[in-house]
């Protein structure tokens, strides 16, 4: 019999393996994105630091940090679940998961939590390093946490969809280069969308990354480009929709049990 205890141990084992998997290559999975984030911070703050004030009383460098933290968190949550699945599929060792009694929900939650943990860990590292440069206020810590959690979860689920769908590394790279990168770069990480022409402001409202960044930034400054509650509603809705799609894919065995 597959008892509830068996299921808990099974899920915990897969989660532990997924966490160890990225920790074993922390130089690539943690250090590299942290350095990239810090480089963005140094370059943009040096070039634009004294010339811009996006929100009243908020220095550009301070404005930039929450956006960079969230962008790194989102990209790394996506990378964790997507790279784990595509590697396991291409190497063939996905079979060791598929032969087990792990249910589609167990697979979903283990991959999802691992993705959130990696994203948050990278985000916290950038935050801690940024603390050496500036004092970063946290006006609404719960908003910071809930947007980090839902953003990481949303991207973890999206990573699972990409990992299940893709059959080659170049297909996965296309996801990163043509979907994740443009959406995160054009989400208001480096600017407030109010500084854009009206047409681009309107287009930005169709970018879910904008709401994740804007809501997360509200948690720090208490100021945002759009209502944080609208952002929360949109982020949670996307999280639920993508989770539903992922669970359906895992349940049906789409491109896994074939």
């Amino acid at each position, binding site marked *: 019999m597959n008892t509830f205890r068996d299921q808990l*141990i099974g899920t915990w084992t897969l989660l532990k393996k997924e966490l160890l998997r990225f920790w074993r290559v922390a130089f690539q999975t943690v250090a590299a994105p942290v350095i990239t984030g810090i480089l963005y911070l140094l370059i943009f703050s040096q070039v634009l630091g004294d010339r811009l004030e996006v929100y009243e009383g908020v220095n550009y460098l301070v404005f930039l940090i929450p956006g960079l933290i969230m962008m790194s968190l989102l990209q790394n949550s996506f990378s964790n679940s997507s790279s784990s699945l595509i590697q396991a599929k291409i190497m063939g060792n996905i079979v060791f998961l598929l032969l*087990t009694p792990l249910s589609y929900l167990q697979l979903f939650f283990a991959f999802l939590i691992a993705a959130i943990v990696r994203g948050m860990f990278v985000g916290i590292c950038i935050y801690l390093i940024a603390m050496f440069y500036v004092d970063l206020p946290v006006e609404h810590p719960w908003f910071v946490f809930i947007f980090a959690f839902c953003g990481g979860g949303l991207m973890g689920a999206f990573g699972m969809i990409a990992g299940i769908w893709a059959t080659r590394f170049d297909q996965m790279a296309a996801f990163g280069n043509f979907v994740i990168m443009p959406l995160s770069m054009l989400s208001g990480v480096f600017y407030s969308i109010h500084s854009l022409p009206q047409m681009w402001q309107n287009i930005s409202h169709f970018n879910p990354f904008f709401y994740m960044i804007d809501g997360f930034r509200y948690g720090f400054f208490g100021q945002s480009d759009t209502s944080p509650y609208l952002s929360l509603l949109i982020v949670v809705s996307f999280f639920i929709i993508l989770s539903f799609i992922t669970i359906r894919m895992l349940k049906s065995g789409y491109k896994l049990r074939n």
Partner: protein
Amino acid sequence: MKKAIVFKNVRKNYKQLKAVDGISLSIEKGEFFGLLGPNGAGKSTLINMMAGLVKPSDGNISVMGFDVNKEYQEARHSVGIVPQELVFDPFFNVREMLRFQAGYFGKDKSNDKWVDEVIERLDLTEKSSTNMRKLSGGMKRRALIAQALVHRPPVIVLDEPTAGVDVELRQKLWSFIKELNNEGHTIVLTTHYLEEAEALCNRVAMMKSGKIVALDSTKNLLKEFSLKNLKVRLEKNNIKKISVLLKETPFQQEDDWCTFKLKKVSDASGIIEKLNSLKIQILDLKLIESDLENIFLKLTGKN
């Protein structure tokens, strides 16, 4: 005796291709069962359907009484599968990989002792802290077998376990698998090495184009399809002579050896008497018995 595995009218179609075409088969508990067939016969598809890696187009499969689709968790607890390909997770060493695999089946730390025992029995102790990437092919194969055993399944399926393995290791694996069978595990083996099936399996199914073309005990198959050949070595002049004189007794010639196909062993004495009566000197002779390979080639139509 209760059944370990039951296939009921199982089919798998890939568009027009019938990879498995209506197979019904039962494997008893404790049996050592061989599944033979040429490439593309449908052996791996059949096993993958049993493992839940491939969904059948039609029919039912159960393992230890559990339906592999409806009661998949219980069914998967009951079976350990050694895949054909040497696949591994490059991030972990042998012991870590085995403990993770056991954990997926709900086994906690109390199972670590059994994991260590499996490691020892498969001679993996020295390599237990070595990353899977750094193992030789033979060691990877042992680790795969260990991985299928960590949750103590009553049924073990080995898909070509000795492919690409040297003779010494093959012998070791054979004796280990035999031990498992003696301990009460049901073993299903697919193999290309027919001597392997002949030496190990109590019962054999031969597959061709998604269908079972023979299913019986290894002993009965050998008896039923047994072919005996009489090979005699003659002087070359005499070979020409007998091809004229023994028109009603066809034979095949290879250098100075002539091979006569016998329906029964007693036919051999008739041929020898005929040759003596024609005053043809026999330089050497051999009576060759059929093996599983002949039967396999005959049934699967491969020459």
